[in-house]
């Protein structure tokens, strides 16, 4: 989901369940995408990235899916833990302007016991 201003979309997940965080990106020329996790008081922490020549990439407990047709990106977290509570940002970039990332609005994930 997307939001403006101070009202981040919130995903409430029960501990042990799987989480799915969605992101719609804007630039059809973007060819790489990164998911970051930001805990309160900290900088964004790299989770996983994916290039446009892939539609799926897996990491430790995380999977990123890319659908270029509808410009949609998702992050799946398996067996969500309390430590996964944070704001998650997707970021898009282009190898033509390498390093310049455009960030989505962010999703607040709250893990409940």
């Amino acid at each position: 989901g997307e939001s403006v201003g101070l009202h981040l979309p919130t995903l409430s997940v029960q501990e042990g369940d799987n989480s799915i965080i969605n992101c719609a990106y804007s630039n059809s020329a973007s060819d790489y995408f990164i998911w970051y996790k930001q805990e309160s008081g900290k900088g964004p922490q790299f989770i996983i990235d994916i290039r446009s020549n892939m539609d799926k990439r897996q990491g430790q407990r995380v999977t990123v899916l890319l659908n270029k047709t509808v410009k949609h990106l998702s992050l799946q977290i398996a067996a969500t833990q309390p430590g996964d509570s944070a704001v998650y940002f997707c970021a898009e970039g282009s190898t033509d302007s390498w390093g310049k990332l455009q960030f989505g609005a962010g999703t607040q994930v709250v893990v409940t016991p």
Partner: protein
Amino acid sequence: SAVISQKPSRDICQRGTSLTIQCQVDSQVTMMFWYRQQPGQSLTLIATANQGSEATYESGFVIDKFPISRPNLTFSTLTVSNMSPEDSSIYLCSVDYRGETQYFGPGTRLLVL
């Protein structure tokens, strides 16, 4: 991954003053960037810090307000000049790591009174 540190971690400043933020990386990197994250919002790219030449600023950001230095491949500074309360934000540096992906520093939390 790259280890990035920022100084200061936080500061409270009076309007009209300037603050210089330092970013140090534990390895040589080609590209360094400065981002701003306003309260409760996403990240916006301020500029690319170029080693040995003037920084490249994004639309809406100017050198007089945000002068940047990049004296070598492991260090950069961002100055927030003539501050107003609207400059209260988190300022983050990021680095391109080996052309593979981008990592962020912990951020500098600035409050302008």
